[in-house]
């Protein structure tokens, strides 16, 4: 989609939940299906678009991702892949959660995919107790119930506490 936009210097302003404003070129914003739909309908690009669910730090990351993907031509898939893995490399769970929320809200599929995959890869080999903490899930099993579920799936617990 990015490559089809020719020489378009139109810009729009996005406003984060903590009140920070970001001036974004239109072809970069079009990485987001949400923004694309807004621009396609009656929203004027002169307006400030509020993104009340996304803080400035996350929005800056999101827009960095969008710029890279909007500017790269489709032939440079390898370069984009290495950008993607570098982009997420040292990110903590909290930042990844915020990225997933933002990418989901702004409908940026590629970003949602890589951030969610990163979370999945991180938790894949963790014990369930740790996963519970990461996602702040309350354990509503009684010890007996939990032991029963564990017994049903005993093979999956080989090597786990």
């Amino acid at each position: 989609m990015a490559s089809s936009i020719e020489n378009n210097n139109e810009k729009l302003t996005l406003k984060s939940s903590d009140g920070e404003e970001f001036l974004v070129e239109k072809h970069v914003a079009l990485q987001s299906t949400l923004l694309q739909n807004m621009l396609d309908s009656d929203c004027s690009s002169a307006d400030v678009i509020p993104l009340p669910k996304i803080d400035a730090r996350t929005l800056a990351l999101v827009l960095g991702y969008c710029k890279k993907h909007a500017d790269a031509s489709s032939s440079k898939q390898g370069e984009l892949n290495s950008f993607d893995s570098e982009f997420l490399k040292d990110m903590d769970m909290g930042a990844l959660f915020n990225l997933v929320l933002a990418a989901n809200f702004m409908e940026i599929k590629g970003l949602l995919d890589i951030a969610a995959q990163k979370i999945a890869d991180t938790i894949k080999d963790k014990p369930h107790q740790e996963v519970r903490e990461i996602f702040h899930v309350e354990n509503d099993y009684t010890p007996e119930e939990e032991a029963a579920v564990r017994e049903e799936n005993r093979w999956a617990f080989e090597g786990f506490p």
Partner: protein
Amino acid sequence: MVKERKRACGRGGGGGGVVPRDLPHDLVAGEVLTRLPAKSLMRFKCVSKLWRSTISHPCFCKAHRARSRLSRRDGCGGLIMVFPETITDDDDNDLLVGVGFFYATLPSSQGPPVIDLLYQFRIGSPRTEEEEEGVSYMKDYQGYTRFINGLFCLYTADRVSICNFSTREIMDLPAPPTRPFQKCLHYLGFDSTTNEYKVLKVCSVKYCKDEEEEEGEKLYFDSKFDVLTLGKDMSWRSLRDAPAIDAWKLSACIDGRLYWWDPAGRELVHFSFNNERFGFTSRPPRTRRHVGAIYQFRGDLALLVGFVDQALALWVFESGLGQTIEDHGETRDVKAYAWCLRHIQVPYPIANRDLKFLANLPTGEVLMTGIEEAAANSNSNSPFPMPIYSYDHTSRKSEKFITGKNYPSSRRKHARKLQVFYYEEDITPLDHLITNK
């Protein structure tokens, strides 16, 4: 620079007072959990009741399957290699004592296939200490079917269980009719038009009318067929007017049809899992009876003749012009197929040494194996007992796919029973799969 900040903002590692928020459960389920391998998911059923019910929900299972197909990520699609452990009894019959399941990832940009001995079923009396070591005892099972979508059946003469390999769930099916026949085989089939799984039980007997005669014309065969549609039939249905088949030779399932040789080796008999009818296919013209062993080759019916003039000769029933198919009085929109004789260059170490086709990869390669010459791989540390080669029909090249360790010649007979299935995880609980939701 595209992004212009009107005010400075604390980008970077500082956090800037931003509180990380929790992901709502639907995002966790739909975006994160669908990307996990089955083993992690089975463990994470212990996280909470909500997680457990999510992971067992058919809609979630469907989404998980769709995503694993899309991304073909590590650990979610690969090869299941089923290697029987057999012993030979006093009458020289092979007795199945266990089944080893190996799993191999597909070769990718990240490297060659990785093999793991995943699981072993032992057949016979359970001994608790050994169960602790990850070996399950499946009392009395005599055989197993091929894999379809990670499902397979374990069976005895009077009992059939279905097992989902992705979740290790196992469930008994209604008891099949017992028949006093020599050989009882079960086949798992899938009808893609109705999305129904079916199990076919074939009981066969062969006997000589005249005790003096051995093989050949004096041999009589009889087969009884019973079928069960999973999730639909409460009991097995007996199929009438079934033709005799040779259950002692290899069969293959191609596009929802099971093929056998007829007892005389004149033509091929097939059973369609869709309409439950039988049909016949003539053998290649001007060939001798039983011209080759039945295989699936790149989605087509094939007869493996053997090693002729430095190449593997193979009759392939390919779409083209010519041969007509009799389909038991039913007019079907069948493409015109014809037998074509193909020659394949196979790797020298396994050429003409019990070579067999194993499986087709989604990328189009055909996997094959054979007994490798001991010298070729005597130093191998591979956990896997057999070498596997891949064959690319387009470039006509073979490549070593998996290195096998040196397999003792005394056990070669068992080595022939290796089966390989392409496998994608499906975590749908069995009671949903077989109630056809």
